[in-house]
C-alpha cells in the first residue's frame, strides 16, 4: 500500500506520534509506538510545517525560501513514506 501525496493535501503529524529534539543524537526525531525516525534538518523543517493547515505546495514554497535546492517530488516522497506508516495524515484541502 503506497500513498500518493497530492499538492493540495494539508499534512499533519498523526496523533500517535511526537516530533521531538534528541540532545543525545543532536537531531530531531519522530517518536511512534513502533519506532523512531531520526530526521535530518530538511526532514525536521518539513514536519514542523505539517500543521494540517498548510498545503504541500505551500510547504514546498516555504522550504524554497529557506534552502537553495528543494525538489517538490522529494517532499512528496518523504511525506508519502510517513503516510504509509500512518505517522503523517494527509487531509484534503
Amino acid at each position, binding site marked *: *500500500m503506497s500513498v500518493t501525496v497530492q499538492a493540495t493535501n494539508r499534512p499533519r503529524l498523526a*496523533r*500517535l506520534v*511526537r516530533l*521531538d529534539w*534528541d540532545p*543525545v*543524537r543532536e537531531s530531531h*526525531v519522530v*517518536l*511512534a*509506538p*513502533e*519506532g*523512531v525516525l531520526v530526521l535530518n534538518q530538511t526532514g525536521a523543517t518539513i514536519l514542523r510545517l505539517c500543521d494540517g493547515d498548510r498545503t504541500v505546495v505551500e510547504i514546498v514554497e516555504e522550504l524554497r525560501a529557506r534552502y537553495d535546492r528543494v525538489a517538490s517530488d522529494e517532499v512528496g516522497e518523504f511525506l508519502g513514506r510517513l503516510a504509509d506508516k*500512518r505517522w503523517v495524515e494527509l487531509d484534503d484541502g
Partner: protein
Amino acid sequence: MDRPFGMLAELTYACPLHCPYCSNPLNLADYSNELATEEWQRVLAEARELGVLQLHLSGGEPLQRRDLVELVASARNLGFYTNLITSALGLSRRRAEELRTAGLDHVQISIQADEQSLSDRIAGTPSYERKVAAARMVKELDWPLTMNVVIHRHNIDRMGRILDLAEDLGADRIELANTQYYGWAKRNRAALLPSRTQLDRAEDVVRAARRRLDGKMEIIYVIPDYYSKFPKPCMGGWGKNQLTVTPNGNVLPCPAAHTLELPRATVREHSLAWVWEESPLFQRFRGTEWMPEPCRSCDRREVDFGGCRCQAFQLTSDAARTDPVCHLSPDHEIVAEVVRAANQETDKGEAELVPRVIPGRGTSTNHSPTGSLGSERSVP
C-alpha cells in the same frame, strides 16, 4: 557503536493472568527483589543519556507497581516516548487519568480472544469484560490504543472476529503475533502451534482486513517463525537497538536472554552505559564475528543476524549456532519435525494447555511478590 533506541522496562513479574504462553522466566522467585522507585528513576536517566527514546513499560503486569504513575512522569520529563503494555487489569479510571496527566503516550492492551469464555479460559482468570471496558475507557480519554493478541492454535480461527472487536473498540493498531516458543510457551508448544491450513486462512483474513481498514486501523501480523524460511532478526541485532531491564535490575539484550548461560549484568552493580558498551553479555553476540557457518558467509548475515540466540540455545543447547528456524541451518530438522507434528493431528491440544502459575501480589501493597512458584496444574 550503535546507540539503543528502545528499552523494555519489566517493572514486575507479578501478574493476575495465567497465560499458557507466558514469556517471563520460569524461576520468578529469582526476580522478587524488585528495583525501588529511585533505582528505576536512575536507570531511566541513564537510558536517556545512552540514547534510548522509547520506553516500553511492561511486566508481568506493570499496573501492579504502585509507583507506575511516578515512573511515567519521570520518563516523560526525561523526554521518552512512553508505552504501557498491560493486561488492563487494575486500570481504573482514576489510575488511567493519572497516567494520562503524567504524560503516558500510548497504551497497549492484551486480549486473548474476541469473546468472554475463550478469552477468560486462556487468560486463566475472568478478565475479558474488564479488558473491553478498559479499552473503551482508553479511547474515551483520547489515547492512542493498540490491541495485542497472542495468536495460537486455539484462537487463530477467530482472527476475523478479533479484528472486528478491535475495530469496534476503536483501536488505532492491532498486533496479532503468533506465540513465540520460549519459557512457559515452550511447554505448551504442541498445543499452541497452528497448522499450515490455519495459517493460510489467517493470512487471507489479514489481507482482506488490511484492505478494508486501510487508513483506519494498522494491522501487524506475525507468523510463527517455525514456518518461516529465514529466522527473525532478533531484536534487530544483539546489543544493537534494544535492551531489556528485568524487575531486579538485570540488563539483557533481549527479554528471553536470561535463559542463556552468560555472565550477568545488572544496574545494581554497573551503569547502564557500562553494560551496553563494555559488558561481556552485550559483547558476546554483537556484530558478525561470532557467527558460525552457514551464517558467516551468508548474504543475509546483516539482515537476520543469525536469528535468535535464545532459540538456538533452547533447541540445540548451543547459543552460538544458527537459529534452527533457518532452512539453511544444519539443525533445521528439529523445527521441521515440530511443524510436521502440528500438521498431523487435527484435534490436539486443549487438554494439554498448562496455564502459567504466577506468585500473585494480589491486593497487597508490598512490592515484592511473596509467594514462590507453585506447582503446575493442568486444565481438566
